[in-house]
């Protein structure tokens, strides 16, 4: 992966009537990078993707691809590959005919087309199905044909709009891993759109969390999970314990917060008196009192066994609850109605402005 910017989106806006669907979006993607746009329905993911593809030019801002300003270049002269959610395969063509389509349109010589089609089909492991009709394929196979068709033209960037969401869960998880391997193999630069956080964390080098037409955070999956930049990002990716409270003091990027479950310390910079949400991830919670750590007590409301981990939901009183993830090895797992005390490190506790949600 080279560090050179490959796709540069700056200040891109899009309005439909009175609604601002994209609000000055900035996003820079390096060559060979796999980036996911993650966000709730209606936040503008598809709109941003269509702007990059040239299918719906933005009202403002610029898009540069491979060093060229393409903001107003029509889609057929952009060299982007798109895998649509519905696959959008051409029903009147065979599998090979679909994959060859882009090269034929470009007027490539026959021998070159045949070679590219064969390579693309073997990459997606469909080498034996070239002469099949599209209607005679399973959903997973159609997905692969759509992918082969998009990579056959060797696009500067590959765009996936919820490309895996039509597959059943098991196939989807297999495809996530396989797709990532394949895209790295062909050194593709790709953007996935999804509202499935697991897919985002599995597939990408970096995740862009979108909310209401803006990118709230752009970070590597690990960092996004461990250091969410906003309450929205915290809520959207992974589970968390969230407790509302009032800042009473603090120093050095740490605040003291009074909450219904007691006094807690959290990372963040707020003036005393500010209303905040204190949050932490469930796997940070440990049974016991801990040393110099945050801690809170309550009564176990539910214990959910999930294979390698167990989720414990604790009613901490005054409407607050604690969510803890304990590993299966934890010798003494609490039971429902047990009184328990949990502790978690201050370094893994964050404070967010309360009104942000």
């Amino acid at each position, binding site marked *: 992966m080279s560090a050179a910017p490959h796709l540069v989106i700056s200040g891109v806006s899009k309005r439909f009537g009175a609604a601002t669907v994209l609000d000055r979006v900035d996003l820079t993607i390096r060559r060979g990078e796999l980036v996911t746009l993650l966000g709730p329905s209606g936040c503008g993911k598809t709109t941003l993707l269509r702007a990059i593809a040239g299918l719906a030019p933005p009202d403002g801002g610029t898009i540069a691809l491979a060093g060229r300003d393409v903001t107003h270049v*029509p889609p057929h002269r952009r060299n982007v590959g798109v895998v*649509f959610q519905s696959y959008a395969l*051409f029903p009147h063509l065979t599998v090979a005919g679909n994959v060859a389509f882009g090269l034929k349109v470009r007027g490539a010589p026959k021998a070159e087309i045949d070679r590219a089609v064969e390579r693309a089909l073997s990459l997606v492991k469909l080498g034996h199905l070239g002469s099949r009709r599209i209607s005679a394929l399973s959903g997973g196979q159609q997905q692969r044909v759509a992918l082969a068709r998009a990579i056959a033209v060797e696009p500067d960037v590959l765009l996936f709009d919820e490309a895996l969401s039509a597959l059943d869960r098991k196939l989807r998880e297999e495809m996530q891993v396989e797709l990532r391997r394949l895209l790295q193999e062909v050194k593709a630069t790709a953007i996935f759109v999804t509202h499935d956080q697991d897919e985002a964390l599995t597939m990408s080098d970096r995740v862009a969390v979108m909310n209401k037409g803006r990118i709230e955070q752009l970070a590597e999956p690990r960092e996004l999970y461990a250091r969410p930049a906003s309450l929205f990002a915290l809520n959207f990716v992974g589970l968390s314990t969230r407790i509302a409270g009032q800042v009473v003091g603090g120093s050095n990027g740490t605040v003291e917060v009074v909450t219904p479950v007691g006094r807690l310390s959290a990372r963040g910079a707020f003036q005393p008196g500010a209303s905040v949400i204190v949050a932490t991830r469930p796997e940070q919670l440990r049974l016991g009192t801990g040393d110099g750590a945050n801690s809170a007590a309550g009564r176990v409301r539910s214990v959910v066994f999930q294979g390698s981990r167990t989720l414990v939901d604790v009613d901490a009183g005054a409407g607050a609850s604690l969510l803890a993830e304990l590993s299966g090895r934890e010798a003494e797992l609490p039971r429902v109605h047990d009184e328990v005390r949990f502790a978690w490190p201050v370094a893994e506790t964050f404070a967010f402005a309360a009104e942000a949600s």
Partner: protein
Amino acid sequence: MMTRTAIIICWTLAIGLALFLLLPLVVIAAASFSPTPVFDLPLSGASTRWYGRIGRLDGFWPSLSLSLQIAVLSTALSLVAGTLAAIAIARGRLPGATALGTLLVSPLMMPGLVLGIALLQYFRMIGFTATWSALLVAHLVVTLPYVARTMIAGLSRFDFTLIEAARTLGCTYAGSVLRVMVPALAPSFLISGLFSLLASFDNYPVSIFLTDVRSKTLPIRMLQYIEEAPDPTLAALSTLILAGTLVLLLISDRLVGLHRMAGTAD
């Protein structure tokens, strides 16, 4: 779940119905080869002499030519107008698109006789008396609904993301329409053209009110022959028309597949 008996009953019914529908055609074809003026069973040999007589029928060539002109022209115009209308109705944000579509298709539900009389009265009222043009306009009313209905159905099933897919693969907008939309809609286009051609060519109830002594369409001329001299010449002519229709169907089948045209695919 269907039982064996039910399957047998269904097949018997289907075959019986097909026989019932097709038998008259077989009889007509057999009669056209009859050596005697009166068709009789069992056949006593075969003759093609009635075929030779078709061309000598009084006023046959002008009628054939008129019918073909009207059928081909009304079909061509219907295909253009009907397809454009269907695009506007199925795709555009036209206010009242559904009502417009129903209106366009409504002549299909009207008895031909009523349509014929109504058109006759109307043309008289507005002083539109040129027979040929009146026939063409009347046949347009008959053929346009076939095209509009089939094309609206075809277009509403068409996935417009296919066009976007083609554009991202390097096609211009027009190129995408040509390479993706046209092939996808070709079956609808062909079948509606075929229906329209046949509907116009064998139309009787509407034409009868609009023709005059000098210009008669073929079906009307044929009825006149039957009244004047009922001999197997007419059977021979009918058999030829039948053969022509079959050829058209076979060509269409080759081009797009009849199963796709009948809309039974996928």
